[in-house]
């Protein structure tokens, strides 16, 4: 992993990263730093109009946005994302926006960016989103509490609990099943665990 740049004491590496933070984290400084580093920055703010190619609209099943006039917050977030996909940026940074998206749009987005070899940085308080990306940094206010491969970090259940986070559903379930000797391993996606339990 190569360090691309440092933002407010956080080394940002060329790996898809979730930044899981407590609710007191103010990310205004981070936004400015990412903009200074020529990243595509997606927030809920400042969305005016749809400006993206028909091809991208089609990939994301979002053609309905063309004729829509009264955008909801979720429409605006989608527009902000789709507009940014037109730019040929290397790094895409999401500030607490993926949590507003439907599962289908979110899956298409992550797969699309991964296929295009973009670096994804996702700021979130949603523990389920830590399963989407390889690397995990955990912040309390502005301090890094721990970082590393997400599977390793999610083993630190006590620290996460102390910060107010549960484990992701599938990990909590597979830990329970392991306790009851119904599995030997931990599972990080629903399908693998169901297929293991009922081959």
């Amino acid at each position, binding site marked *: 992993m190569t360090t691309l740049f440092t933002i407010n004491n956080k080394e940002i590496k060329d790996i898809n990263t979730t930044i899981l933070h*407590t*609710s*007191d*984290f*103010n*990310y*205004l400084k981070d936004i400015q730093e990412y903009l200074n580093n020529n990243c595509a920055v997606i927030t809920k703010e400042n969305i005016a109009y749809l400006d993206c190619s028909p091809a991208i609209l089609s990939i994301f099943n979002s053609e309905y946005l063309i004729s829509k006039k*009264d955008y*909801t*917050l*979720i429409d605006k977030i989608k527009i902000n994302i789709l507009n940014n996909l037109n730019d040929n940026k290397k790094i895409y940074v999401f500030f*607490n926006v993926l*949590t*507003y998206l*439907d*599962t*289908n749009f979110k899956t298409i987005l992550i797969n699309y960016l991964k296929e295009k070899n973009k670096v994804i940085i996702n700021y979130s*308080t949603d*523990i*389920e989103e830590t399963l989407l990306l390889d690397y995990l940094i955990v912040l309390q206010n502005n301090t890094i509490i721990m970082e590393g491969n997400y599977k390793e970090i999610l083993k630190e259940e006590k620290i996460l609990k102390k*910060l*107010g*986070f*549960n484990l*992701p*559903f*599938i990990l*909590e*379930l597979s830990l*329970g*099943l392991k306790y*009851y000797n*119904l599995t030997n391993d931990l599972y990080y996606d*629903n*399908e693998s*665990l*169901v297929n293991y*339990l*009922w081959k």
Partner: protein
Amino acid sequence: MTILNNKPKEKIYGLMGNINLTTNNTNISIVTSYKFGSTVKDYLNSPKDISSLKMVYLNETYLSKKIEELSESEIKKVNLAKTLITNPKIIVLNYFEKGLTNKEQKDYQRLFKKLSNDYHKTILIYTNDISFIWNLTKEIIYVDKNEVINTYSSDDVPSINIPPIKEFITLIRNKNINIDDYKETSDLLKAIYRIKESNNEISN
């Protein structure tokens, strides 16, 4: 707000679907991340400022803070404190749970129950996350283009954001296994254990 027409008051409702929330009714307060342009103390502007902050799990140290010192979630919490001071009959939460940790979400679920049960407020929670409201209310109002389409129970509401536990149960059923709906991981775990145990008994 036409959404709550003919609905019993002093209850909690979920609200899902496609809508831009607005109101000009002074009995209704919509809690958003409105960015007030002052310190928290000036914004709250009430002798009840500390008690209202405490109700929303903040403390008096926040009084001297300026908006730029607060996170987005803290701004929402302060706006909820302001709403408690203005004391409307109906409180509408607009994606309030976003940006909160799991523990905070539980804390606020308790607060919303308290506001409904003890303070006789009608609470409307607008969200795309069914798992945030399914233990708070049995009635979820579904809207599209600002029109009420239907009212569902929390078990039947059509959601485009399927909680992982629901998705998991669907995958089990796809294997032709009979299993009930569960909302808690611990209950699902026990159910899986029972199913596997009964399979073992049959195969033994």
